[in-house]
């Protein structure tokens, strides 16, 4: 008896070279690949039969519609050449983000066929369906379900099933709608496919074609080492992935999280307390959902359902993602108090599509700056819930010489240069025209000018030109004013633009 290095010594008396009993061979995976050849076109008004092309950033045709192809337009042609072939050609820019979104929508629908769904951008998705065969009653059942699932999207598609995702994608790209069950059958199924269908870059493809290689079978006949040396290891790795000789892990697609819950009221009511009780249960459900997914939310839509009219929407928003049900309920309470209900409520529904990763704030044993900052945020959120989001504003200076453009309302991040001359703390927007008495400007009394003029002349480029002489003035009551004489107007017109509070 010999003990092999690295292997535990076999039990005494047992034959050393017997095959292991009880280990079943793992069934091969079956990847169903779905490719949407016209996805780039479909995202722009699907079902349009006119001659259209989607043009890439480098001004070459990425996809052409059936009518455009009939006119002789082919993929890769320059957009100018395509326009010469068809006079009614419609050119559309390529939008990869919308393509990805369309792909995600398709993937989300396909999650009902199998849990293992992954995206293969730009235009395909792959599903692992071995585990679902029994549920759907065989592969034909899956195909039927797939057709029904994708029909509402309206995209044309080609499918292929193979033991490796790359092989499936290759078949789908060549429009061979076949199922290859076994890895052993792959070389014969793929051998005749042309090189141009491989997902490799154009220069490499051209070099391969120049050496006289026409299809995959030619490629597989060549020695691996030489192939890797001449054309790079990536090509060999890709070929290995096609045949399943190299692992090909794919990121799984996870559909976005959503929460929706509804609660029917025993009888229709407009009573605040009853609605709060119903809302409380729903928000607690939402809190549990968020906690279970380690997520938070910043927007929740609550719908108060009515019998006659459809519903009253109530928006509950926070400034940072939260998952504290009681805080959300508190904000809902404020918003509900301000909501006008057209008729009694028969049910409450909450929807939350904005589920985001949640980072809990640090908790300290003692009250510290972090909890104070959180208190502050909560207070502002409450104010927004009750007064509306427009009621809370930040201000910031802006680099502009025109006083009315030298500030903005909004994010507190803006920066502007500090003016050299004194500016008033109160701004009157818009400037108020001063009355005149005895040919002198009047603001609750005759004005006395103290300093000035400060000439501000700017803005000729955007149509809001200003040409003014600013003075600091005061009236008998002691109010210090920032007044200006408008030089654009012929007559002697004075305005007050601010108060030095």
């Amino acid at each position: 008896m010999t003990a092999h290095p690295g292997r535990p010594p076999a039990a005494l008396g047992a034959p050393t070279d017997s095959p292991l009993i009880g280990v079943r061979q793992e069934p091969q995976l079956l990847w169903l690949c779905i490719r949407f050849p016209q996805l780039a076109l479909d995202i722009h008004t699907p079902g349009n039969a006119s001659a259209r092309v989607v043009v890439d950033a480098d001004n070459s045709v990425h996809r052409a519609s059936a009518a455009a192809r009939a006119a002789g337009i082919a993929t890769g042609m320059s957009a100018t050449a395509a326009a010469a072939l068809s006079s009614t050609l419609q050119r559309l820019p390529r939008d990869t983000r919308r393509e990805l979104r369309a792909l995600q929508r398709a993937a989300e629908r396909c999650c009902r066929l199998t849990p293992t769904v992954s995206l293969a951008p730009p235009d395909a998705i792959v599903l692992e369906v071995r585990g679902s065969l029994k549920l759907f009653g065989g592969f034909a059942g899956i195909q039927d379900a797939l057709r029904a699932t994708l029909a509402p999207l309206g995209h044309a598609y080609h499918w292929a099933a193979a033991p490796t995702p790359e092989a499936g994608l290759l078949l789908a790209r060549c429009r061979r709608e076949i199922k290859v069950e076994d890895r052993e059958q792959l070389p014969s199924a793929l051998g005749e496919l042309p090189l141009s269908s491989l997902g490799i870059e154009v220069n490499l493809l051209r070099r391969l074609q120049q050496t006289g290689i026409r299809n995959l079978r030619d490629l597989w006949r060549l020695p691996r080492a030489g192939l890797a040396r001449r054309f790079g290891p990536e090509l060999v790795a890709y070929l290995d992935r096609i045949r399943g000789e190299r692992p090909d892990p794919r990121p799984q697609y996870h559909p976005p999280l959503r929460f929706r819950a509804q609660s029917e009221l025993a009888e229709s009511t407009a009573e605040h307390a009853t609605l709060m009780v119903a809302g409380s249960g729903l928000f607690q459900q939402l809190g549990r959902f968020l906690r279970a997914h380690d997520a938070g939310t910043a927007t929740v839509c609550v719908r108060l359902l009515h019998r006659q009219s459809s519903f009253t929407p109530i928006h509950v928003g926070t400034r940072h993602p939260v998952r504290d049900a009681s805080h959300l309920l508190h904000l809902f309470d404020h918003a509900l108090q301000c909501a006008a209900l057209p008729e009694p409520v028969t049910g409450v529904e909450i929807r939350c599509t904005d589920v985001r990763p949640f980072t809990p704030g640090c908790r300290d044993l003692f009250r510290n700056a972090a909890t104070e900052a959180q208190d502050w945020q909560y207070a502002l959120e409450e104010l927004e819930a009750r007064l509306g989001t427009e009621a809370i504003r930040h201000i910031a200076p802006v680099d502009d010489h025109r006083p009315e453009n030298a500030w903005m309302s909004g994010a507190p991040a803006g920066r502007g240069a500090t003016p050299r001359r004194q500016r008033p703390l109160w701004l009157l927007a818009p400037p108020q025209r001063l009355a005149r008495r005895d040919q002198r400007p009047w603001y609750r009394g005759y004005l006395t000018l103290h300093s000035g003029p400060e000439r501000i002349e700017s803005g000729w480029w955007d149509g809001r030109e200003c040409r003014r002489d600013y003075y600091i003035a005061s009236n008998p009551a002691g109010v210090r004013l920032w007044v200006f004489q408008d030089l654009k107007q012929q007559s002697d017109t004075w305005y007050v633009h601010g108060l030095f509070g």
Partner: protein
Amino acid sequence: MSDIATAAGGFRYRLWRGLDPLPSGLPTGFAALDALLPSAGWPAGSVIEVITPAWGIGELRLFLPLMQRLSQQDQYAVWIAPPYTPYAPALTQAGVSVAGVVIVQPPQPQQTLWSMERLLRTGACGLAMAWPRQPTPRTTRRLQLAAQSGHSLGVLFRRQHAGPCRHTLPVALSLRLDAAENGLAIEVLKARGGGQLPAVTLVWP
């Protein structure tokens, strides 16, 4: 009483007078005013009232040193229902960081005091200034309690009306302002723990 106070000199404020302990003072930035006020500055954790004959005579300038210091301490200064737009370039010119300035413009006037109460109660708000239409003794008491729990300063700006009849609000400090030559005349109508105080005239630097 005044003899003892004079005798005690600088320790005048430490004498126990059978009143509530005076709140610690936030320096106003004006030496003459600090010397006058019983808490040697704005009384922290309370609500004060500023009565002015018109907006724009310098009532904001009185609080600029405090705003400047709060923005250095990363505390917020809130303006609730201001009569005009606070002008951002002027604030930066005065050394106030606009990042700490929050403006609340409630759609209905009666929400002004509710907003102020809510903001005073958070500890992060150093100064809440409001221009309410009709503050009543009852709402002011609520504001006072909120300011106490949040340890922040609330300022109610009011315009002086012609008639002699008006509410006396339960505030810690009530000031009446008047314009003066390049400055501001301040009359202390009421100060908690102060008794009768003389008027003072500030001259702008």
